[in-house]
């Protein structure tokens, strides 16, 4: 059983839902990451999604675009992100880490090299925003051979037939994008999400995480009522943007948001 599967199985047994924070690796500086990752775990997260900085993040809104620019100002590369995960793993062997990003840095490193090094570093899953299953026919099996789960997106525009095919390629969990738009968008409709998730349950037994538009304890709790996991990104990254000069304050802001969500989800 992969670390991600174990995590979801344990949560299911406890009747709890996964809280999955997204932060961009190296934002606002590489030194921030290791303490932040450990503090996220202490604050009650279950899986960490680590954004791999990319110069042209087409699917992201302004908040995460700027986060990537801050990380790239320190030349944070995919190799650096793997080093961060490796460092995290020296003291944490239980919390799954998923890399989320775009294909070109992986393509540049080479798929075989990346898969091997990511697995060695302790990465558990890979979510590549611009790699739909149609283009992943070689990549997904390669990643799985190295023990990496391939996490794919499902969207409001995904037909049920297509969702069925995507879930056949997916492992770990699937990520339902709650709205049409980029990260950091506002208008979350929980009823619509609930209806869509009910349909998706008919085509997959994989855990379903939901992201985009979750901003606070109330929206996290509402989504936790219908999904297996709650993904939260832009609202955390905003804490960094507001405290670029004060990393401790930024981290305190993030963990406060997480604690609030955790409490609301478990209530």
């Amino acid at each position, binding site marked *: 059983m992969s670390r991600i599967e174990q995590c979801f199985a344990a949560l299911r047994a406890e009747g709890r839902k996964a809280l999955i924070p997204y932060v961009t690796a190296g934002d606002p500086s590489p030194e921030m990451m290791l303490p932040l990752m450990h503090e996220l775990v202490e604050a009650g997260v279950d899986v960490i999604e680590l954004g791999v900085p990319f110069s042209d993040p087409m699917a992201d*809104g302004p908040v995460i*675009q700027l986060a990537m620019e801050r990380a790239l100002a320190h030349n944070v590369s995919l190799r650096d992100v793997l080093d961060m995960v490796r460092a995290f793993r020296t003291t944490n062997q239980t919390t799954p880490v998923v890399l989320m990003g775009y294909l*070109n840095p992986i393509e540049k490193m080479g798929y075989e090299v990346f898969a091997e090094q990511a697995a060695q570093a302790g990465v558990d899953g890979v979510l590549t925003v611009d*790699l739909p299953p149609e*283009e992943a026919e070689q990549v997904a099996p390669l990643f799985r051979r190295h023990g990496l789960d391939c996490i794919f*997106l499902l*969207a409001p525009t*995904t037909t049920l037939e297509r969702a069925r095919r995507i879930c056949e390629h997916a492992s770990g969990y699937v990520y339902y994008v709650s709205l049409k738009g980029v990260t950091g968008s506002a208008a979350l409709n929980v009823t619509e999400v609930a209806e869509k998730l009910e349909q998706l349950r008919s085509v997959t037994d994989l855990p379903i995480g939901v992201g985009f538009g979750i901003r606070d304890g109330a929206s996290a709790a509402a989504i936790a009522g219908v999904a297996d996991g709650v993904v939260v990104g832009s609202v955390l990254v905003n804490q960094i943007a507001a405290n670029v000069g004060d990393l401790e304050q930024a981290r305190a802001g993030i963990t406060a948001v997480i604690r609030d969500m955790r409490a609301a989800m478990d209530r």
Partner: protein
Amino acid sequence: MSDSNSIDYTSVPDQHGHFGPYGGRFVSETLMDALDELEALYNKLSGEPEFQAEFDRDLAHYVGRPSPLYFAERLSARIGGAQIWLKREDLNHTGAHKVNNTIGQALLAKHMGKPRVIAETGAGQHGVATATVAARLGLKCQVYMGAEDVKRQALNVYRMKLLGAEVIPVTSGSKTLKDAMNEAMRDWVTNIDDTFYIIGTVAGPHPYPQLVRDFQCVIGREAREQCLAQAGRLPDALVACVGGGSNAIGLFHPFLEDQDVAMYGVEAGGDGVETGRHAAPLAAGQPGVLHGNRTYLMADENGQIIETHSVSAGLDYPGVGPEHSWLKDIGRVNYVDATDTEALAAFRELTRIEGIMPALESSHAVAYAMKLAATMRPDQIIVVNLSGRGDKDIHTVAGIDGISI
């Protein structure tokens, strides 16, 4: 190169939009359904004579096609080599080849019932061509343009506004064409229900590289017929500038099976390819994935896209259409470059010798054609795609001359 005789050029893209290892559909999931829908509609309509007739009618009566093939006799005589013939896409309505494609895509938008169109633009030619067809069809139009390009193409920005489009300056990243394309993608993913994205070049996710190529192929089909009629034979060489590469593929594609016709795609050499300050991914880049397709890209050792440089905003792009990547690898087309300095010299030369002021983009093709002509015989023929007119660049050239107008 040796086996390019046996290649079936009509076999690409395959059903998944691949040109050999290039092309494809690398986008986030939200867009996949819309791309499937567009592909299905295009496959259906492109096989219908009524759609083709509607497109041809618009090209004839609205764009003013066919565009002439003009023998630049004085320029050719001055060089003393091959004959230089110009395919006059600059004479199209709106002043560039871009309108061939926007007419076609606007027809698709109309068939899909989308009330709003968006576009990205670099030099502003595609933005103007999109704003123009939107005005004609009564569609709401928003055009994304890098903030840097908004500055250097002020004339086209105002043209778009007069046509009723809203121009949205993009301030992220390098503030040029690639960032405008990122922002247009973000808009599309947000407004997918009512919006048609009119991509301006032969790049992006499948089926865009295919349908833009098909719409632009009118250039090469006409040029082939005109050359046979006016010169009595096929040309020896074709020359076109390559940013994303839509005017080049439009000229080249109908000649691909004519093995004796050599082809030259001219990238923007900027300060010189050896300086690193250029926009020549085919000359100096490597394959990668950006904007929905796999293609040659300018990226650093970590896969980050690097900033490009060219005096012409329309060529200032770190990628290139995937079919060009394929044509490079199989050796059918030669990809070369012209520097800023060479392009500016060609701009002045063509203006003074022939009374034709080319766009700075097209000036790259003219510059290379002049060099090539000098190595060829006077009975040989080069057809150059004069993809756009230079009025929009007068401010840039005047600025270089130290004159403010």
